[in-house]
């Protein structure tokens, strides 16, 4: 389970990011969240979109190396300390967070956060047990 996230391999060259967003835009794929992890040579572009299958297909057709991984999306109150509280729940149980990125503005008074962990089911259950709202995938795609 979890939310399907698109990862794209990019070289660190000018214009590559806008090329990807253009391909997606031309195919009516909406991007609701985006982050880039990069090194001196390359980057991994991570995307949450409304239609992951279509995004994967059109990006591959355009020659990109794409992979799909599952992540968790949580909604937390948009105020100081809320994120720290949510993360604490996971670290207390020794769940390692590989990476994290946030996006705001689409849900009222809530900040949305994407988490990559190894055991999604365990983390989801844990978060829910502490009353932290974990979004269903369909909910995320329709953001």
């Amino acid at each position, binding site marked *: 389970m979890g939310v399907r*996230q698109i*990862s794209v*391999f*990019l*070289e660190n060259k000018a214009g*590559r990011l806008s090329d990807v967003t253009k391909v997606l835009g031309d195919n009516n794929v909406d991007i609701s969240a985006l982050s880039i*992890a*990069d*090194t001196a*040579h*390359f980057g*991994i572009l*991570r995307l949450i979109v409304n239609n992951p299958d279509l995004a994967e297909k059109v990006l591959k057709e355009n*020659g*990109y*190396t*794409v*992979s799909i*991984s599952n992540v968790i999306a949580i909604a937390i109150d948009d105020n100081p300390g809320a994120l720290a509280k949510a993360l604490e729940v996971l670290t207390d149980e020794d769940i390692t967070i*590989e990476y994290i990125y946030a996006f705001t503005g689409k849900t009222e008074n809530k900040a949305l956060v994407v988490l*990559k962990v190894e055991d999604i089911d365990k983390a989801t259950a844990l978060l829910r047990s502490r009353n932290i709202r974990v979004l269903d995938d369909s909910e995320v795609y329709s953001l």
Partner: protein
Amino acid sequence: MRYWNEHFECMSRDEMKVLQSRRLQKLVDRVYNRVPHYRAKMMEAGVEPGDIKSVEDIVKLPFTTKQDMRDTYPFGMFAVDMDEITRIHASSGTTGKQTVVGYTARDIDNWAECMARSLVGAGASRKSMVHVAYGYGLFTGGLGVHYGAEKMGCAVIPVSSGNTARQITILKDFKPDILCCTPSYALYLAEELYASGCSLDDINLKAGVFGAEPWSEEMRKEIEEKLGLKAIDIYGLSEIMGPAVSCECLEQKGMHIQEDHFLIEIIDPETGEHVPEGELGEVVFTTLTKEGFPLIRYRTRDISCIDTSQCACGRTTARMMKLCGRTDDMLIIRGVNVFPSQIESVLLELGETAPHYLIIVDRVGNHDTIEVQVEMTESFFSDSVKYIESLEHRIKSKLDSVLGLNVRVRLVEPKTLARSEGKAKRVIDKRKM
């Protein structure tokens, strides 16, 4: 049937050396006396037949190259009169004149012998039905396989090349168990077979003996899956004889050389010196028994290496590994010989498929640099930065140790490396620009 000729295929290395030495002496004597071109070359090198007492003395003899054949076109290197020649083959050279070769009746028989050994090594027996889809004609493929299979007592189907629909009908209706053709044609046959609505159940192939062009392990896997057979690599060239100079056994761990007929050397193409066993170099052959068109130390320009340890199949003959390209592809970087195929095999080891790559050689100051750009593929890609960095590092350390150089590795996006006519450009050598 395990071996066609156990005596020659399984004799001890010492016995083989004695046999080769004796045959080499006779050969040198013969060409010195019968081929003026060779006599002149030997005189120029200051060597006489009496100087050759064992295989080790072969290094005293001059090499033969394609140029020698051009200089003596068409029949100048034949060592017998035309009335003893029973067959002529020719290969159209991609550069310059065609190469013309002649065989005596005994040459043809020896060739059939080598081919029979190869076919048995590939799992064929007297009961086999052998579908020969190599071209028949001046090209040595068709007739080469044909005579060997016939000598064995197989049922030979001389289909020759072309007319794929008919080939498929034969595969379905006659149900041959051995297919002989080029690997690319085997793949094409498989595709056409499936396209015509057939499945593996409609054919009965057990082994395919494929050669006459370079092919990869990846291609082997694909052919084996699609045709449900063991894909066996066979090697040969018309100058030396034709197919069956060497051929894999069912172990598929290198091609057994018919060493009682062909003496192999692996040399550094730059210096002409022997390289240690197991190292890549140019394949050089001496035809120990050929009468019509004998060659001494013929430089094939093919790159391979040899293994003289005994094979699990029981044969003791040395094995040459799958060809790794041509000497023309060789780069010399800081005095080290580098073959693009070495890089390809490192990449193949790390992923399921070998990605496209580009080698960029440059000179900074007096120092040669080598950078290898590798296109990211599905099988390499992961969502983790750490994983990709470690992949980059693994490629680098593997290349460093295989090539003995400090290689810079850069992962690039797919399709960024230029391709021309479907074939990728592998090397940019900026030192020459």
